[in-house]
């Protein structure tokens, strides 16, 4: 097998096409450039003075200071080039900081040796191109080959950046041997964002950010990219980015490359519906409260000609692109993510949610008050039922919102406290003395029409009859142990929640973005969840392809 070593140069390295023709600069984003910049102007690139004023410049400009962006920043800085990384958020970390810290690295690294796991880069490659697994079937094997070859080196490289690992290792997803382990949660709770809830990803991004700063990387927060600047609308070299910061527009020139590490598109309703038209606005996204997956990188790149890649991954019905809510009665109830009241984000998220032990304690109804599936089930058939048409003549796609309906007895069985800060009564949780009254109280931005009280009453009466008879004729649910009858009654938001972006921009094996004609866009790179072709869940692919992109950009001709 052809290999590409981290310290070497790929034999498939594309020769950079000469696009440095003079001409008008193309602005490939939605936002206009200009305005009253408060920053000084450094100068303009040859021939483009009339259109763009550069306020800052660096060899490598990175958009997004999450796992892939920080990894890229360090890799570039270690190679002696200047780096500016921007992030739209008020802090670094992206949704990596909200992560459980799962790293999927094998290849025979030291951790595996300690755990007695035999592995090789070739085994990593073979696993992640498996045809018989949903997470690997649609992989771009050129990308997987690079990933496999960088596993061992990246394990050691992260240790050098100060990242610590928890003992233990498990097998998951397409891997046939144990490769998944966790970073140690960052030791300063106020910097964990969701402390005391195993947000071990903080133990990855905080050391990476510190390492990057120590190496001279300039990280600019609260600054959002608006566009990528290319010499011509659909041709030529990428010259830099326009962005909007606290002091107004800031245009940053990139001498060697722009790296898009923007974290995927799951929050971008228009873009995500490109892949799946059912995913309308009611579907919330796991980490939105901290770091929206805005699709900024994909959008800006497509505006200058970039193409998407391996889009089948997004809808392969495998993994955690869509998940069942585990914590109900709050806006964001992702499986492993709970915000305690001492989280700095709590004023925004407003509730911890009620953690469900047994979905047999609730029924679920759509916005129309009707049941639609066996509530104790999960998986993509369940999600498809959630997203089925609810009968709203004005909204044919979507299918939500979905509400969990339960009674006082269920709340007691689950030890739920049906009050703030556990629930959010401002649109995401409702209580009433009767079911008819409960339906009338449901008022949420995504509940487009009132829920009919009689419909909800009848749904519960039918379910109670199924419990009584021991048979659910409608949906075949076998967990029929408790009726919903004891007042008060509750409705808790339980619409499935989105998470992973599993498809994105087309890149080559050096993480260079490829256009619609299959040609590399000179000076433009992508890594992490905005990159298409490799749909592995977790942080490892973000670290590795951030490094891959930075290595190439750092060594590219300026």
């Amino acid at each position, binding site marked *: 097998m052809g290999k590409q070593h981290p310290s070497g140069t790929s034999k498939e390295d594309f020769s950079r096409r000469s696009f440095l023709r003079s001409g008008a600069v193309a602005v490939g984003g939605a936002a206009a450039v200009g305005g009253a910049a408060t920053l000084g102007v450094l100068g303009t690139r040859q021939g483009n003075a009339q259109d763009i004023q550069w306020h800052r410049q660096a060899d490598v400009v990175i958009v997004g200071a999450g796992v892939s962006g920080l990894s890229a920043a360090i890799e570039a800085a270690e190679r002696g080039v200047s780096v500016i990384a921007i992030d739209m958020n008020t802090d670094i970390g992206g949704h990596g900081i909200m992560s459980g810290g799962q790293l999927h690295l094998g290849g025979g690294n030291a951790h595996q040796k300690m755990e007695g796991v035999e592995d090789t880069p070739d085994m990593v490659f073979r696993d992640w191109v498996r045809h018989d697994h949903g997470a690997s079937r649609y992989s771009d094997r050129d990308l997987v080959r690079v990933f496999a070859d960088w596993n061992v080196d990246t394990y050691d490289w992260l240790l050098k950046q100060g990242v610590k690992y928890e003992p233990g290792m498990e097998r998951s997803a397409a891997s046939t041997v144990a490769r998944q382990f966790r970073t140690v949660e960052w030791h300063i709770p106020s910097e964990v964002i969701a402390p005391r809830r195993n947000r071990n990803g903080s133990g990855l991004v905080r050391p990476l950010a510190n390492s990057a700063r120590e190496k001279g990387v300039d990280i600019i927060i609260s600054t959002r990219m608006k566009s990528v600047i290319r010499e011509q609308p659909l041709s030529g070299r990428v010259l830099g980015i326009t962005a909007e910061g606290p002091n107004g527009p800031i245009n940053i020139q990139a001498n060697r490359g722009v790296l898009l590490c923007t974290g995927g598109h799951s929050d971008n309703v228009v873009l995500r519906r490109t892949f799946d038209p059912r995913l309308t606005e009611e579907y919330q996204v796991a980490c939105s409260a901290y770091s929206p997956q805005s699709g900024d990188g994909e959008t800006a790149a497509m505006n200058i000609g970039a193409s998407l890649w391996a889009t089948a991954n997004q809808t392969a019905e495998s*993994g*955690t692109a869509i998940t069942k809510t585990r914590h109900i009665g709050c806006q964001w109830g992702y499986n492993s993510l709970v915000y305690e009241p001492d989280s700095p984000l709590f004023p925004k998220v407003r509730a911890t949610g009620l953690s469900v032990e047994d979905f047999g304690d609730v029924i679920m109804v759509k916005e129309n008050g009707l049941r639609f599936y066996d509530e104790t089930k999960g998986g*993509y058939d369940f999600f498809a039922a959630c997203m089925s048409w609810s009968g709203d003549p004005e909204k044919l796609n979507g299918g939500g919102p979905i509400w969990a309906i339960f009674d006082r007895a269920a709340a007691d069985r689950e030890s739920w406290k049906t009050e703030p800060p556990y629930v959010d009564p401002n649109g995401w949780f409702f209580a009433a*003395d*009767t079911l008819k009254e409960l339906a009338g109280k449901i008022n949420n931005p995504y509940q487009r029409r009132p829920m009919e009280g009689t419909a909800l009453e009848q749904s519960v009466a039918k379910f109670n*009859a199924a419990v009584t*008879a021991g048979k659910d004729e409608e949906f075949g649910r076998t967990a029929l*142990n408790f009726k919903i*009858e004891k007042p008060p009654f509750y409705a808790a938001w339980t619409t499935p929640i989105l998470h992973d972006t599993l498809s994105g921009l087309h890149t080559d094996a050096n993480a260079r973005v490829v256009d619609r004609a299959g040609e590399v866009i000179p000076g433009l790179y992508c890594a992490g969840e905005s990159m298409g072709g490799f749909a592995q869940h977790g942080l490892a692919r973000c670290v590795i392809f951030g490094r891959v992109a930075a290595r190439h950009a750092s060594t590219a001709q300026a």
Partner: protein
Amino acid sequence: MSKHATVIALAFKDAPPATVDAGGAFSFSIVPAWPKGLGPEGASYVLRKGEHRLQGGALPESDKDDGSIALTLRAPDETGEHRLTFVVTSAKQDGHEPAEGTLPFALTAVPHETSLALWDVPSPVVRNTRFEIKAGAKCSASCGLAGKVIEIRDERDTLMGSGALGATTAPGTAALVFTAIALKAPRRLGLHHWTASFTPSELKLPHSGTTSRFSFVAVAEPAHSVSVKVVHKETKAPIAGAQVRIGVYRAQTDDTGSARVRVPKGAFPLIVTRVGYKMPERNIEVAKDIRVRIAAEKLPPEDPFALWTA
């Protein structure tokens, strides 16, 4: 002809609702444009129907930048459409006659909705035996319903029992008054769907009636006991909190992993469930007291990738 020299121009910022409970509160907000030299100080309002004054008082102060004023008034007690006029009159000030502004609008007063909750409904119930359910009622405007009667009827609309609502609210509820209703299970075995109906009358304000349905299974007299023991398949440790279903009979295992149910003679499906465990389903034949042991297999944590079935 108006006796007032000047006019206050009134407009709704938030219009009143089209329908509201008869006699119930409704809210809206107005934006007054005060004539030169006049202002909200000392102004008053009146809600009129024709020339009849329904209510009035001092105009509340605005706490909004746009000078809008929020009001909550009481709808007429009679149901139907009402054509009303909201009138604002300024205070009499030196050198000025009081100014007046009028704002007509329509409001439909509807009967108060009522709704029911029925709970503690036992099932199964041995045929011909007495049982009791709890029934509560609620008015959409939280009117007192004590003394009003809930009736229970069977599938043939035969009155099976009734109860007058008490004065206390059900635990945990805001305003659900309730009663216990004694009933008798029918002779016919099987699933029964009965209906509770509530038609409140002689209340000060009009109320609409409502119905709600509940179900139970009438069974034959039990003859034998079925003892179910649920244990971990590997460790043999008892599993508490497992839900046991033997046909229409339900029970939960205790700390020793045991549940006991008395059933009539016959064949029953036995289904045991507990989150995180896989349990074998089986059919049991009951002709005497029997014991059944269920070995529960602990399931691994859910792997979302494992759900892919291609």
